[in-house]
């Protein structure tokens, strides 16, 4: 066989293999969603959203864990957004390019890939113990803020870098200070990209259970948290709790909870995709 003939064969074989692998992934995903829908869809009704947890599966709902999730997401956003954007601005606009900023850059990218349980352990030591927050919402939000910070920083830096240098030049040439240029030109120009990154980061935070369990989130919370200093549960932990119960009714509840969680993260991702496409269209 000629060399090019062999290459073509390898080419074909690989493309077939690629299609098969893709198909396996999608098929498994569809199967999973199908099973969950079959198990849980019938369980979703208004009472499911408004009921407290209960010993009886038919009476139990996700009210407290939903509100807990909402609290956690809002607090995480408040803690991580200003910090992440400031860090990105510093790294892009102020830090001198050199060894030090390279090391920082590599580290931040790597941090985005650290297993979330590690952040939980870090949070347990720093926030729960040293700062004495114990297992309250604030400890959880601080921990998740650490977790999503690298994602926000990386996304914001990319968005800032995408703002044309000619726009910054124009601003400087008119006598604007660096800060004015960042505030009036760079951040507005980067806002679409920043928004996309932030939403993706938060949708990650919504799905996390492990680090929150480590920093003391509860599995059974019969009340709605009223302040950041209160105890709480979140949706993924509620689901985890239901799955680990022996009664069949609870696994139906878990499936329903998973559907809600999926819907939330899917909606957030759609919003992010929408912003990204609008932002790309604007910058063209």
């Amino acid at each position, binding site marked *: 066989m000629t060399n090019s003939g062999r290459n073509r064969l390898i080419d074909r074989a690989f493309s077939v293999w690629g299609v098969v692998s893709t198909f396996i992934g999608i098929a498994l995903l569809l199967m999973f969603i199908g099973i969950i829908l079959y198990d849980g869809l019938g369980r979703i009704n208004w009472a499911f959203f408004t009921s407290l947890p209960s010993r009886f599966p038919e009476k139990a709902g996700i009210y407290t864990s939903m509100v807990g999730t909402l609290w956690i997401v809002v607090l995480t956003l408040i803690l991580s957004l200003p910090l992440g954007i400031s860090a990105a601005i510093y790294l892009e606009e102020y830090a001198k390019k050199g060894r030090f900023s390279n090391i920082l850059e590599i580290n931040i990218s790597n941090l985005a890939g650290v297993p979330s349980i590690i952040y939980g352990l870090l949070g347990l030591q720093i926030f729960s113990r040293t700062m004495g927050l114990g297992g309250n919402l604030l400890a959880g939000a601080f921990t998740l803020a650490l977790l999503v910070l690298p994602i926000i920083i990386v996304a914001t830096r990319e968005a800032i870098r995408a703002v044309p240098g000619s*726009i910054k030049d124009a*601003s400087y040439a008119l006598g604007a200070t660096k800060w004015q240029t960042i505030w009036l030109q760079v951040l507005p120009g980067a806002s679409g990209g920043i928004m996309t990154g932030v939403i993706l980061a938060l949708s990650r935070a919504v799905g996390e259970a492990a680090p929150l369990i480590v920093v003391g989130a509860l599995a059974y919370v019969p009340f709605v948290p009223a302040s950041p200093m209160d105890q709480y549960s979140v949706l993924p932990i509620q689901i985890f709790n239901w799955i680990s119960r022996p009664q069949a009714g609870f696994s139906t509840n878990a499936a329903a909870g998973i559907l809600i969680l999926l819907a939330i993260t899917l909606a957030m991702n759609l919003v992010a995709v929408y912003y990204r496409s609008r932002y790309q269209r604007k910058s063209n």
Partner: protein
Amino acid sequence: MTETKQHGETVQTESRSAIEIRNLSTYYGDFRALDDINLTVDPMTVTALIGPSGCGKSTLIRVLNRMNDYIDGFRVEGQVLVDGQDIYDKKVNVEQLRKRVGMVFQKPNPFPKSIFENVAYGLKIQGIKEKSFIEERVVKSLQQVVLWDEVKDNLKKNAFGLSGGQQQRLCIARTLAVEPSIVLMDEPTSALDPISTAKIEELVFELKSQYTFVIVTHNMQQAARISDKTAFFYMGNLIEVGDTQQIFTNPGVKRTEYYIRGQFG
């Protein structure tokens, strides 16, 4: 010491030049982009900087309002006096300098804002709030660049909706709105069609009674048409500078002649 009057205020100067460059060398890291340049620019004149690509024209023009400050490793030796003041002195306020020395770029670069906001930007960042003052200045600047009649009904529209030539005139208006005494232009028409180019040349000709212009251009006809003085650069050196008429008809150096005749670079 003499006193020159500029825009109503009295400025103490050592000389009557708008710009005086003394023994200027500039470096990007170890690379010397300009080598011992001496050049003076008189007020209310147009000076053209010409020379082959990479000879240092942009480097020089960006030195004049310190736009190279943001480039890591960029370094300046020698002196650059603007209205008699050494602009690389530690005490100089760079933002103030840039209000006096405005700049127009090669590609039109309006802000992604309305036409009005583009022209008003330079005033607003100075903290000027008075609406009537800003409006007056915007109208005046747009009239100066002969854009007013074309945009007066669309001031709220996004500047990206304008044609390339209109955008460039808007960028000039934006520069004039902060009332600089010197306007730097780095190949301001190289991205424009002939008609837009002619309009901008006409503008410069009209406005030079009020402003000092330094213009980089690759277009020899343009340099000949609009400039009073021409400076020819080659590989970081200032080869020759003189009255445009003389440089174009009777250059003192062979290299200049070759370049201008288009057999060079």
